[in-house]
């Protein structure tokens, strides 16, 4: 069930909306429209659905329209054309056409927001900042302070409740911002580059905290980021935007493996694939392995081979004629306690990071089994490909290398 449903949305800023939309329909670019005396186009023909409980990351360079799209969802930006539906219980409310009262209801009860530069009120204490939204809901002082305290405890800042925002570090200020948004108990959270103003260590820490909180609270989160690593880490889905349009929308792995154009490719080339890529998309297929009599060669240099039965099940392994132990690894098993010098078999859904750890520990390629039969292996070559950002051109690279 989708919490936010956007259809053919255009956002145009300024007073010449009609004329600008007409130019847009004629296929003019953003810059051409400005040159012709039109307005700035923030979002052009965006359609996207965000399911309940999902974290959807809007990704793109600055000026790509990701913040404009985010701000349209709670009506901070004008909706010039198209449909933007947000779930309110059993019904969907069109933010573009609803009246002031409904919009206010959506803002106080359904959608809350976290800002890039925190947007905390400098004259209020931390506690009253967290209670700010509740005050807008019309909640009494005692009640809202009690509830705000609860949320401050959730983000670990209850001992700072009577301090002012400027007395806190950036990371702590954004935790206050998070607590303020959580205090509303709304189902939908809009986060506008919430961690971009923080230094890398704190950023990563807050990302982890957000993921952890999300597992407990199960909100629908629309998250804006210009950092693909961040998007890959926290996103259930990622929508990539370029000059006001959504150009690719999909699961993190899809984005990394199949970038639609050069723009996305560039993002992908600069990400760390360790947490995103799965064994299945990296592996060398069994069919591509070199055969020596009835054995499959894993490493020609030290003559490491495996033999399989007719069902494709690995039955034995050897190195220079001496047998090698086989070990089944399951998600959750401690890699550092695996026996050294064994061949490890794992599921194709293993993450690249874990596969590399196993390779590092055992000194051998990782065998990937599905339904007890070998479907491929992960060897150093596969890892290097991924690390060099060449995995989305595997076929070429494979052919050139093979």
């Amino acid at each position, binding site marked *: 069930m989708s919490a936010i449903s956007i259809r053919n949305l255009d956002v145009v800023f300024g007073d010449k909306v009609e004329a600008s939309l007409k130019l847009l329909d004629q296929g003019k670019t953003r810059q051409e429209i400005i040159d012709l005396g039109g307005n700035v186009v923030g979002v052009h023909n965006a359609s996207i659905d965000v399911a309940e409980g999902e974290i959807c990351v809007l990704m793109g360079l600055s000026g790509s329209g990701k913040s404009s799209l985010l701000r349209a969802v709670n009506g*901070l930006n004008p909706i010039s054309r198209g449909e933007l539906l947000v779930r309110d219980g059993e019904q969907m409310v069109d933010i573009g056409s609803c009246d002031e009262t409904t919009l206010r209801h959506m803002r106080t009860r359904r959608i809350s927001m976290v800002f890039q*530069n925190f947007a905390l*009120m*400098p004259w209020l204490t931390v506690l009253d900042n967290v209670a700010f939204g509740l005050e807008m*809901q019309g909640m009494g002082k005692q009640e809202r302070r009690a509830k705000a305290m609860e949320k401050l405890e959730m983000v670990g800042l209850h001992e700072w409740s009577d301090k002012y925002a400027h007395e806190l570090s950036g990371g702590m200020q954004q935790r206050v911002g998070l607590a303020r948004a959580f205090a509303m108990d709304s189902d939908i959270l809009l986060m506008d580059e919430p961690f971009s103003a923080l230094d890398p260590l704190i950023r990563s820490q807050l990302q982890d905290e957000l993921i952890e909180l999300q597992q407990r609270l199960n909100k629908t989160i629309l998250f804006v980021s210009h950092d693909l690593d961040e998007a890959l880490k926290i996103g259930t889905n990622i929508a990539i935007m370029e000059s006001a349009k959504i150009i690719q929308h999909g699961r993190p792995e899809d984005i990394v493996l199949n970038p639609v154009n050069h723009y996305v490719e560039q993002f992908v080339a600069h990400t760390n694939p360790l947490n995103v890529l799965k064994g299945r998309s990296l592996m060398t297929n069994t069919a591509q392995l070199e055969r020596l009599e009835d054995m499959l060669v894993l490493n020609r240099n030290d003559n490491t081979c495996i033999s399989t039965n007719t069902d494709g099940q690995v039955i034995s392994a050897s190195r220079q004629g001496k047998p090698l132990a086989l070990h089944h690894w399951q998600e959750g098993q401690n890699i550092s306690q695996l026996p050294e010098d064994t061949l490890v078999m794992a599921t194709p859904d293993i993450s690249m990071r874990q596969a590399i750890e196993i390779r590092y520990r055992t000194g051998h390629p990782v065998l990937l089994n599905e339904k007890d039969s070998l479907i491929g292996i992960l060897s150093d070559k596969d890892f290097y490909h991924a690390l060099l950002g060449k995995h989305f051109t595997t076929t070429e690279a494979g052919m050139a290398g093979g």
Partner: protein
Amino acid sequence: MNWITEHKIPLGSWMEAFVDWLTFNAAGFFDAISVSLEWVILSVVEIFQWFPPYVPMIMAAALAWALHRRISLVIFVVLALLLILNLGYWQEMLETFVLVLTATTLSVVMGVPIGILAAHKPKLYTFMRPILDMMQTIPTFVYLIPTLVLFGLGVVPGLISTIIFAIAAPIRLTYLGISKVPEELIEAGKAFGATPSKLLFKVELPAAMPSIMAGITQCIMLSLSMVVIAALVGADGLGKPVIRALNTVNISQGFEAGLAIVLVAIILDRIFKNPGSKEES
């Protein structure tokens, strides 16, 4: 060139005709304002006079302590007030204080809402700016004349002239404060569902408060600078002995009354400037 001098544009006569028209048609209105304002000011002065001098002194000292928590300021305030009492200007000081208080209160009550309105409607401010400039640059004696005609001799024309002169400060600084509220705070207010009035009272006004307070302090000082001029049209207060000293070339009286004005100015400035701010020391 003769033609130009011979055909004088009767700007002055037009203004006079306008004031005459006002006096003729709205005399009742202006009289009502005059009588009620005069009554308010005189009653407040009487209330203060009813107390023995140490009561206002303790009140001033307590206010200084409450706003600034500095014992040196409290001592200064008490000593300065004792000196004024000793010089024999206690009653005049009270009259001046009440005049400043009334002028500031009325300026703030009118000026802050006008400033808010101007910040929300930039076009209104473009229109208002030359008027504000004019109110502050026209020599105050000039608008003393029509106010004198409209409100009669006494404290009220002085008060009105003071307000015309001083109201620009709260308007300008409220406008400045409200229009400088960071966009992100406004967005946060809206995003959490603030109604326009909540946005004003819970976000814009608190954020603009330092600027508005500066406007009020300025307004107090501008009002005080008008006391001597207000005395010309019959307002009571420390301006009166100054005028009298000027007319009789009385150096000693002029010096003492002038000193009393300076002391009142310093007290008001020190007490009302940046109340509660931690950076001042």
